[in-house]
């Protein structure tokens, strides 16, 4: 085959591949020009993180503002140390609170940020002091049963006392 036709076809082939790469990167994936690649990290300690995993979303008012960079166990405080990578275009006050939430009933867990009112903003390496860990279903049920049992116990007690009198 003629060399120039070969080059033409291979050129078309490579360009097609390049366009499909662009489509995958921008239309299918999340590599959009809007998300400025730079982030700053903030640390938060939680009593319980539930099923939170690395790369889980960090949302504020429902908008994706960052991702969980790492989840570690803190051997000094005996709780979970979560590092958040927040997009540099979003700044949060120093007294922002973080909580582990669940999207939907069975959905994935994410971190929700509620902005505070401080003038100073969180910087790279700062810690979020106000945190609320994940709701654990077993504990909730346990507490519910315990309180029910206590209610039942006191009323019975009262009845018994009444009977004695």
């Amino acid at each position: 085959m003629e060399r120039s036709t070969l080059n033409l076809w291979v050129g078309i082939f490579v360009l097609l591949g390049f366009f499909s790469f662009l489509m995958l990167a921008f239309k299918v994936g999340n590599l959009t020009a809007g998300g400025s690649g730079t982030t700053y990290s903030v640390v938060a300690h939680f009593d319980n993180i539930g099923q939170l995993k690395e790369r889980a979303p960090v949302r504020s008012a429902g908008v994706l503002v960052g991702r969980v960079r790492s989840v570690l166990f803190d051997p000094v405080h005996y709780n979970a140390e979560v590092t958040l990578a927040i997009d540099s275009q979003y700044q949060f006050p120093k007294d922002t609170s973080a909580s582990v939430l669940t999207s939907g009933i069975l959905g994935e867990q994410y971190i929700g940020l509620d902005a505070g009112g401080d003038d100073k903003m969180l910087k790279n390496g700062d810690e979020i002091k106000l945190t609320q860990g994940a709701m654990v279903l077993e504990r909730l049920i346990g507490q519910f049963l315990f309180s029910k049992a206590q209610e039942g116990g006191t009323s019975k007690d009262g009845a018994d006392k009444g009977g004695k009198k």
Partner: protein
Amino acid sequence: MPLDATLRGIRQVGDRTLRIVERVGATVAFLGLTLAQSATSFRRFGLVIREIFYAGVQSLIIILVSGLFVGMVLGLQGHETLQNYGSEQSVGVLVALSLVRELGPVVSALLFASRAGSAITAEIGLMKATEQLSAMEMMAVSPISRVVAPRFWGGVFSMPVLAMLFSAMGIVGGFLVAVVVIGVDDGAFWSQMQAAVDFRHDIVNGIIKSVVFGIAVSAIATFEGYEAPPTAEGVSGATTRTVVSSSLAILALDLVMTAFMLKGWN
């Protein structure tokens, strides 16, 4: 007597295992030899372009059409199941993630092995059977650097391009079925896909997979052709072995790479 028969059986198992290990080792050694003699392919890149045409451009039709069909089937099946959970919009996530992570690289590599790998083996095998390779050696032209290396690099360059085209085409197919035919919401289809597909962990990992498959298929195809017995049966057997062993290699490598990519490298 039964002991004798058992021993013979065990010996046969051992013999077959050793043969397979020898074959794998010889393929890797041949890959090393090809890499060592690749300088000519890059100095005269026209040789590689010719092979990209035969391996890559001529596989375009089968890759594009199969990608479209696979994406359409994923759209139909995904919608059918997700409907039960009331989350039809997630069909875009399902189609995109399964294509970009797994089906794109793997299915296009399997198609590439049977479409282009077998052709490479048959071509090199026939060149050997008709003593063209020996003739080159007589003229002090290394057949590995002139015949094998350009075909190897042509395959390695074509594979990731074909895999990306397969994935892109499949997503278009899933879009056609889910959004245009069934009527899933257009915006939710794309936005949920974009929220779930990560560039580094999904798309780049898929491309890494396809490059590895390209190396494996091209190495096996050139090795089988070069080592084929120089007879008609020898070439036909070598062509079959190329398709069988590269398919097995693709699936085994895919399992190993997926395990590492999902669980991390530590």
